[in-house]
């Protein structure tokens, strides 16, 4: 059995044959996972300095040189890193007294932090499979981003208290601006909202649950939803980027809604996080500092928007990006800023970011070429072994070597 680090579900029932270094037949691996496996032989990163290929040792020492010379250093990425590498990364940020951040700062960091603080109730996917009778996908399209979400955990499987299948035993509700592939499956359970309309929807649902008539166009549909939620025994809300971006860093109303639902029945929240180990990084940094992202170790522990990559690019004079591709994701003006800062990029593959880096250091693909552990998006720890031999170094070894050399 092999593991898949293609998304944060970390599927653990994969069968794979290797045919001369290439991926042969795979079983149980979804299409996205298959792409992840096939990428093993595509666009692999070479160790480079200023665009010229060098040996790995030279790349590591040059990387250390870039980092050591910096006054305001940013360590960014970490969602596609093993727990061990993340731990060393946080250690390094502490040691060097610099800023550490991850893509959570412009995605679901706030939701995850609220969960870790215990202000939003959560549960594991195994609880979902065994007990949940309502799954709400809010600004979240796991069919596209986490393809086996519905089949392994949240809608289709049989579980301890869910023996009769999805038609009788479970409800799927989708709240989204777009009729996504997940919304196609939910059929009548799809609530289409306008962009930025999540707050209004929360208000209307809150009113409905409070026994008032909601101020929405389709009152009957909303009242039906209220009844369904009130009657449910165990509901779960899966959050996605759509919700995170719509509430723009203001989670109070959502927390109140989940609180209200918990007065009536039992409801949990699980975020659908992007990279395979985003949850791991958030937890690792949280354990150390009480925050999931945007932390500066310059004078003790400081946290705030000024330490998020979007703002800190103005202040920083060197960056190390590990297993992430901010140059492809950030708004062009910020990507241009990033590209002008002396950068070390650690990645298994060539990306927009590695192309803009001064120094690139290749690593093994975790779960295939290197073992390690990670936290699934519901917070459950998953450990995996390497399934194929490789000359690439595991990420933790590379980060450790860079840290030692600095």
């Amino acid at each position, binding site marked *: 059995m092999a593991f898949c680090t293609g998304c944060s579900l970390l599927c653990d029932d994969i069968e794979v044959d290797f045919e001369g270094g290439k991926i042969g037949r795979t079983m149980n691996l*979804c299409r996205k996972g298959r792409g992840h496996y096939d990428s093993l032989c595509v666009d692999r990163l070479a160790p480079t300095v200023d665009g010229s290929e060098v040996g790995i040792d030279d790349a590591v020492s040059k990387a250390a040189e870039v980092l050591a010379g910096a006054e305001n250093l940013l360590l960014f990425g970490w969602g596609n890193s093993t727990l061990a590498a993340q731990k060393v990364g946080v250690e390094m940020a502490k040691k060097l007294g610099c800023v550490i951040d991850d893509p959570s700062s412009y995605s679901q960091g706030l939701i995850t932090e609220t969960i870790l603080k215990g202000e939003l109730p959560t549960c594991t996917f195994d609880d979902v499979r065994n007990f949940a009778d309502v799954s709400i996908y809010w600004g979240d399209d796991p*069919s596209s981003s986490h393809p086996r979400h519905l*089949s392994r955990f949240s809608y289709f499987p049989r579980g301890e208290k869910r023996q009769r299948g999805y038609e009788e035993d479970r409800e799927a509700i989708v709240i989204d601006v777009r009729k996504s592939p997940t919304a196609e499956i939910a059929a009548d359970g799809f609530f289409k909202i306008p962009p930025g309309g999540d707050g209004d929807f929360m208000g209307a649902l809150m009113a409905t649950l409070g026994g008032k008539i909601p101020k929405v166009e389709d009152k009957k549909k909303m009242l039906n939803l209220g009844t369904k939620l009130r009657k449910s025994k165990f509901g779960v809300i899966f959050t996605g980027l759509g919700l995170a971006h719509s509430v723009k860093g203001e989670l109070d109303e959502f927390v109140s809604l989940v609180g209200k639902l918990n007065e009536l029945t039992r409801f949990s929240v699980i975020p659908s996080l992007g990279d395979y180990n985003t949850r791991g990084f958030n937890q690792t940094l949280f354990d150390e500092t009480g925050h999931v992202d945007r932390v500066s170790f310059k004078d003790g522990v400081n946290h705030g928007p000024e330490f998020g990559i979007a703002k800190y690019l103005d202040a920083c004079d060197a960056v190390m990006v590990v297993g992430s591709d901010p140059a492809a994701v950030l708004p062009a003006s910020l990507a241009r800023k990033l590209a002008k800062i002396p950068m070390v990029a650690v990645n298994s593959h060539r990306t927009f970011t590695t192309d803009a880096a001064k120094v690139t250091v290749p690593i093994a693909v975790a779960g295939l070429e290197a073992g390690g552990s990670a936290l699934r998006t519901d917070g459950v720890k998953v450990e995996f072994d390497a399934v194929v031999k490789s000359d690439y170094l595991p990420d933790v070894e590379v980060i450790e070597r860079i840290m030692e050399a600095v």
Partner: protein
Amino acid sequence: MVSVMEIYQLLPKTNCKKCGLPTCMAFAVGLLGREKTIEDCTPLVEEPKYEKKLEGLRELLAPILSADATETGMIIHTEKCYGCGNCVVACPVNVANDPKGTAIGRGPVSGKAILIVEDGVVKCVNVDQCRRFGPEKVLCSACIVTCPSKAIEFI
């Protein structure tokens, strides 16, 4: 199972659009999904320099083209399939035959599952077990309505 990449390797890779599709990759997907035929690629069939590729492609696709839709009339449009396994887990036959595997959301463990995910896409095996098979067939649609991309249909 033939992959899109294997087919693509045997195409002219000129993206000439003569088949009506924008790229040779798209045509490869069309061939695999049986929405296009080899003959739709006129350069491949007509230009002698592609003779070897044409021969290889015919050989590669022979098993696909001869096997018609499975005997239940099920057609899987693999080019649309996400490999999510919703149909695999929702299929009532899989639930009955494979209670410790597909029924609880995992890969099959019994060898008796009729829908499985192989090479990233769904595949129908043991077709005689499908509820739509045989004289006492039922018009079950569990695998159709659970699909996020309308990749399964029955003809």
